[in-house]
């Protein structure tokens, strides 16, 4: 290490000497005679400091990398990615992944499971957290105290504990599969391994029906835009939800009747331990999701509360002066302004949520961290797998940040 620093110092000294010589030659001509020497020239000094810092960082990184390479070649560790094509040997619960499939496919399924935690959980956490945040400011004493206790409870215990707690509650609150709880006339299944829900199966003309539904959706969007524009132009109440939803439902129902019942509803049942019909969700997934949402919502609630309090009191009074009721005041006056403040810290919570999802494997849900931990145990090379893991979380985080930034920009007041 010392050797490297010395070498770096010598190279920099040569640079400095050459530059000083250059300055000497230059300042001998009359037109440049008034230039200060380099050691008193602030531009040169700032640049030199930056070059030296960069050189130090580079030397340190190079040293560590060379050490790493020497060590890995000592113990004969290959640093390539060919192992990705070998059969993984592992399996993932309730995932069709074959245990002879390549490692890259196992990793893909891990990323998919992480994605499933994020895409469902973040909207839930935002909605729930917002409600709790509003509840904390409620004038209803009981409601605000309940919200306060909730926030203080979940905000102050480690997230891993929350997940294991949810899992333990689910594990013991729901019966084992052989005596599953079948509420609502056996249309649902709840046991401590899986939850089953009714679902749609395609019948006659299902493809056509899908097109009809899509057209209904397009018509609804068109109406929504038209009503919004009309409102902006003339101030006529837009009722865009009514118009849009009405059109969509009307077209869908008409299509359903005209096509003679293009889909059926199946309910799940268990026959000889096999789940038939409906859709099932594995309990650890639900437990992880609920745990993460409860935890993240407690943080979001505080952000929402703070943002609402940051809205000027005059805005509330203005709302009151316009005779808006409490819902309208929140919907049209306070929340739009509060969300502008809340959004940047919310993005942070989304990123935390994403990273916390890596704790899911403690309770048996194999998302990407779980899959990679599993592969470590099967003597797969750790450096490459860790690298992949970091890239995966980096990509998730960057995409979330990018989406968040776009939304954030649109939320900001357009300056004039």
């Amino acid at each position: 290490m010392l050797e490297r620093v010395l070498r770096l110092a010598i190279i920099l000294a040569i640079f400095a000497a050459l530059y000083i010589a250059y300055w000497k030659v230059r300042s001998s001509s009359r037109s440049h005679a008034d230039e200060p020497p380099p050691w008193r020239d602030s531009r040169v000094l700032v640049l030199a400091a930056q070059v030296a810092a960069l050189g130090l960082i580079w030397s340190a990184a190079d040293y560590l990398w060379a050490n790493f390479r020497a060590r890995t070649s000592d113990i004969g560790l290959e640093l390539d990615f060919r192992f990705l094509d070998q059969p993984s040997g592992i399996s993932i619960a309730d995932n069709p992944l074959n245990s002879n499939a390549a490692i890259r496919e196992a990793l893909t399924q891990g990323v998919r499971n992480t994605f499933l935690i994020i895409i469902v959980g973040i909207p839930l956490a935002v909605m729930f957290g917002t409600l709790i945040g509003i509840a904390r400011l409620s004038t209803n004493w009981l409601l605000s105290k309940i919200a306060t206790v909730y926030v203080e409870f979940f905000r102050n215990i480690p997230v891993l504990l929350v997940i294991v707690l949810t899992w333990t509650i689910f594990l013991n609150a729901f019966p084992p599969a052989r005596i599953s709880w079948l509420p609502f006339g056996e249309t649902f299944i709840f046991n401590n391994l899986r939850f089953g829900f009714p679902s749609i199966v395609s019948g006659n003309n299902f493809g056509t029906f899908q097109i009809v539904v899509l057209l209904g959706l397009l018509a609804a969007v068109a109406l929504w835009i038209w009503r919004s524009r009309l409102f902006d132009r003339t101030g006529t109440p837009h009722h865009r939800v009514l118009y849009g939803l009405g059109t969509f439902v009307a077209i869908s129902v008409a299509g359903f009747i005209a096509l003679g019942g293009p889909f059926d509803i199946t309910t799940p049942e268990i026959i000889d331990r096999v789940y038939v019909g409906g859709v099932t969700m594995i309990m650890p997934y639900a437990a992880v999701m609920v745990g993460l949402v409860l935890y993240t919502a407690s943080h979001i609630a505080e952000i929402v509360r703070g943002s609402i309090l940051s809205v000027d009191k005059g805005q509330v009074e203005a709302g009151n002066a316009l005779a808006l009721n409490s819902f309208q005041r929140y919907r049209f006056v306070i929340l739009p302004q509060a969300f502008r403040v809340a959004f940047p810290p919310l993005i942070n919570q989304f990123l935390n949520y994403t990273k916390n999802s890596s704790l899911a494997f403690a309770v048996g849900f194999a998302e990407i961290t779980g899959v990679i931990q599993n592969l470590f145990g099967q003597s797969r090379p750790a450096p490459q797998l860790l690298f992949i893991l970091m890239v995966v979380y980096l990509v998730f985080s960057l995409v979330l940040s990018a989406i968040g930034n776009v939304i954030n920009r649109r939320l900001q007041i357009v300056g004039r």
Partner: protein
Amino acid sequence: MIRRGNALKRTAGVVMALSLVAAACSSSSDGEAESTTGVSAVTEETTAGTAADTSDAADDVVVTQSAGGRLAAVQAAGVLECGGNDTLPGFGIIDADGSFSGFDIDFCKVIAAAVLGDSEAVNVTPLVAAQRFPTLQSGEIDVLIRNTTWTASRDGAEQANFLQTTFFDGQGFMVRADSGIDTIADASNTTICVLTGTTTLLNLNAVLGDRGIPFTALEFESNDELQPAFVAEQCEVWTSDASQLAAFAATLDIETSILPDIISKEPLGPVVADGDTEWAQAVNWAVMATIQAEEFGITSENIGSFADSEDSGIRRFLGLPISDGDGNEVIAEVGLGLPTDFASNIISQVGNYGEIFERNLAPLSLSRGPNALWTDGGLMYVPPFR
């Protein structure tokens, strides 16, 4: 004129800067070359350092090095350094008073009794799974007896020398006693709890996949979550090494049964470092003596009654004098470097294989199974002691 001069100077400046960059580049590439050699020098230093450390450690035994390495070193030190487990009931666990006990620990005592004549001259170092081979390679321990499975890659890549298997284990399945599952074939479409990152999971997928038994593997990071999941019937089946299942079954409040199916071979036994045949042989024959003793029917209780045995095989085994026909009494020397009475020390101080098994594993309701003597249809078979 002035302008041209300026241009000239500017060109000169550019050329100079370029040459500087070139110099920097070449010097940096030199630097790289140097740095590579620098690193290899560092590596050599570390290797040299380790070598020096090892020789330091070996300095204590340098006198006996020529007389046969580790066997003599252990005898000179007067204590056997044994690597073991401290968390596995029945095999290696730390007691309330801080002493170690268990099946594997007893074999440490067997070796101490054979080599040193004192079964208590053992110092057990508790090791986690990942530490065991590095510790063995470094020479910190003389022998490793820590429910370690003998595999080709460990024999090869880990520079380990596996000796007589003391326990033939295998991956098994545990179910609730009232589950109605009698063999693994009944377990189709069940959920099977397994630890993540283990060969157990690989065996499970491979074997049940080959047999066409559909199942859901529910993978846990530790037994802290796996055990409640099994108790709450989240999974109907728990798979692990059969001996470990038996150990856990003894701690559960529910009635369980272990299925007869064993889907993998897990031979567990003592391990020494490669490169010291004399030491390996001494350890091996010490361990095998317990099995031979059971075959002879010699126990720690009845060993005294064999002092005047007529059986020359038993007399030779126990190091008792044998008449040569001319009225001279001679004691057979087998040339293992062990005392001639090593077997009787082992049996009187620790016991034979059956006694060790009964003492440690019978309380876990483990049956002998493949660990019975070959004369009883098991796999315990040792070469003759002559």
